[in-house]
């Protein structure tokens, strides 16, 4: 029982991670008609915003460790800590929440620059050209990050108060259900972001125009609305959502320059299983695949189907696509 509850939580958690990345991908495809292979790189850049903020906050006074004579080794104490003591320490501790605030404008700028500078010129080109150019862009962005931060994963900590787990079982009168605070926060945050995106698209005029554009681009253009600028903003929005997902994920997954590529394939699968261009579909598929992946990793199931956890995501994708031609919630 506890095991199943825990796996559901795991699944939801994974699901939100997939859904957040997939959301932007499907939004961009649905509105701009662009297959963006650089979307994973946006997720990665969001994560490195957190690394950058942490590095900035921890600029340190360095005291030479004199016991080491062969090279310069330092005991580092961040200036913030030196200047403001506990307050400084707390600020550093809250590096990730601070990064979230920083990530929004940074990722928006990145997104806008990317759309204006490159993507916009590829709306009318073949998908093949789009794939090559965005793949090239992803590699370039990745290598630039590698140049600055190296290839190793870099640890980013959640604030102390939420760095461990909480006994949520006691809430429901069950025993032994502890779950990391940060994962619960991540879940809540992601649901809020997803909700925010939906609200934005459904309850604002801007959003309605965008949704109309997803259905019929020419028609909206004929109405005399400058859909181009709106699409630029949509791309920026997608970049922000992917970036925030990356920033918030850092305490769970130490970021490295390669992480975007690893999420790219999975998020494409999520998008397509959900139905290309369908936002609710992307979210639903994210949760579905996340939960199934968690369940099929259980020893009880693996005992009968060895290796099933290796392929479950793809297997489900195949079954869904064969049964439903346009994915879960895709429109014909």
């Amino acid at each position, binding site marked *: 029982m506890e095991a199943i509850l825990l796996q559901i939580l795991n699944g939801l958690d994974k699901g939100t991670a997939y859904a957040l990345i997939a959301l932007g991908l499907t939004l961009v495809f649905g509105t701009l008609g662009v297959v963006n292979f650089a979307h994973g790189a946006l997720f990665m850049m969001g994560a490195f915003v957190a690394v950058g903020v942490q590095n900035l906050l921890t600029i340190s006074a360095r005291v030479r460790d004199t016991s080491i004579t062969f090279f310069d080794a330092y005991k580092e104490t961040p200036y913030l800590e030196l200047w403001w003591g506990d307050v400084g320490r707390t600020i550093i501790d809250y590096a990730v929440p601070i990064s979230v605030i920083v990530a929004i404008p940074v990722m928006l700028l990145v997104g806008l620059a990317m759309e204006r500078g490159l993507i916009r010129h590829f709306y009318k080109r073949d998908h093949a050209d789009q794939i090559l150019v965005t793949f090239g862009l992803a590699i370039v962005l990745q290598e630039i990050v590698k140049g600055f931060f190296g*290839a190793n994963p870099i640890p980013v900590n959640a604030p102390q108060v939420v760095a461990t787990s909480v006994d949520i079982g006691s809430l429901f009168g069950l025993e032994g259900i502890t779950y990391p605070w940060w994962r619960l926060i991540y879940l809540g945050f992601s649901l809020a972001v997803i909700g925010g995106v939906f609200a934005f698209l459904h309850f604002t005029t801007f959003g309605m125009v965008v949704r109309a554009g997803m259905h019929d681009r020419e028609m909206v253009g004929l109405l005399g609305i400058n859909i181009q600028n709106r699409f630029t903003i949509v791309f920026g929005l997608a970049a922000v959502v992917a970036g925030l997902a990356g920033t918030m994920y850092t305490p769970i997954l130490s970021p490295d320059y390669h*992480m975007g590529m690893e999420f790219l394939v999975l998020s494409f699968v999520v998008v397509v299983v959900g139905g290309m261009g369908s936002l609710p579909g992307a979210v639903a598929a994210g949760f579905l695949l996340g939960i199934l992946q968690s369940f099929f990793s259980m020893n009880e199931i*693996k005992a009968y189907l060895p290796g099933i956890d290796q392929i479950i995501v793809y297997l489900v994708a195949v079954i869904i696509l064969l049964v439903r031609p346009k994915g879960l919630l895709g429109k014909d």
Partner: protein
Amino acid sequence: MSDDDKKFGTLSRRGFLKASIATAAAAAAPTILIRNAHAFVNEPKGATVTLGFNVPQTGPYADEGADELRAFKLAVKHLNGEGNGGMLNTMKPLSLKGNGILGKKVVYVTGDTQTKSDAARASAKRMIEKDGALMISGGSSSGVAIAVQSLCQEAGVIFMAGLTHSNDTTGKDKRKHGFRHFFNAYMSGQALAPVLAEEYGTDRRAYHLTADYTWGWTQEESIKNATEALGWKTVATVRTPLGAGDFSQYITPVLNSGADVLILNHYGKDMVNSLIQAVQFGLRDKMVNGKKFEIMVPLFSRLMAQGAGDAIKGILGSTNWNWSLTDEGSQAFVKSFGAEYGFPPSQAAHTCYVQTLLYANACEMAGTFNPCGVIEALEGFKFDGMGNGPTEYRAADHQCFKNVLVVRGNQNPTSQFDLLEVVKEVPRSQVAYDPKIFGGELGSCNA
């Protein structure tokens, strides 16, 4: 199949790349080389001798590869008599003279393995076929090491393995032309066992999470055997997909499994992520069976420990070498490396540096670059002064036997590099084993 085939079949199956290498120089006709009786592949004719350093330059292990490359360059410098000489000052016995190898200046070529067998082999072949490398070294995964090792056997050059920890490299996949200085999973288990008994007692229940591929399996087996010999029980061994990223679905079952030790048979990013996440799930704060829950990572590396941040503190594991060792050889190496690059070398850098020197020294001992001579010189070679105390290259499987370090993530690091504290230097006698237990055969020298 014709009679002709029978006739030629046995004759023509010669050394793998030889034909190509010889013709590479002539670069044209598809001739089958008739080999001159005394020649060997890439025999250095000029004033230089070329070594090939094949390391991951892209992909998740790129930093480790970069560190290996630094060590190689340093080794080349020292061999050529530049710099402060490093371990040339401490190695015993020493045949090197600081004038290159056998009087020829050492030059090197580099390549990118991408941590993929195919890419690593392609890169090694380039070094052998195009650049005329006599020896290949490097690598940071067992799959790559084994793939390149068998290539070198076929090509008739020497392979001095870099970071590879699987039992198979000098076990069932050992080769006459391949040599490993790094320790292996079996040694990790043997070294860790006494420390585990001391620290955690002999009545423990272990839960393994294992990367689902060859290296993970051999480590799981070795650690399982070693801990069960102590009296520990194994609750479960669970395989996880390589590069899973989020391990939550594998960690939550541990919580209520009744296990009180979690053993992570992961390396690199998998290790970083699974360890961080296990700590977040509060495993280390738990009391199970009246004991404090512990996590253990049998194979540690400082570079990867950096990625795990605070999660590494207090975690036990084993490592081949650490820069904080105070023996003469380690000090000499750390000093040279630190002076050159401004930070301490990793264990991967250490093993690559040592391997290069050992190869060069063997050439000097043999008085030839001929791989058969070099192999003979290396087999059973006993040396000291290169860290890890007195060491022997065992002739039976080309595995180095030396002290193994049991380390713990440092609770109070005095500097940014001070991540691991050495708990115990387990003497070589404790980690030795009978070469027969892993099977495999070396084959014969191919030159």
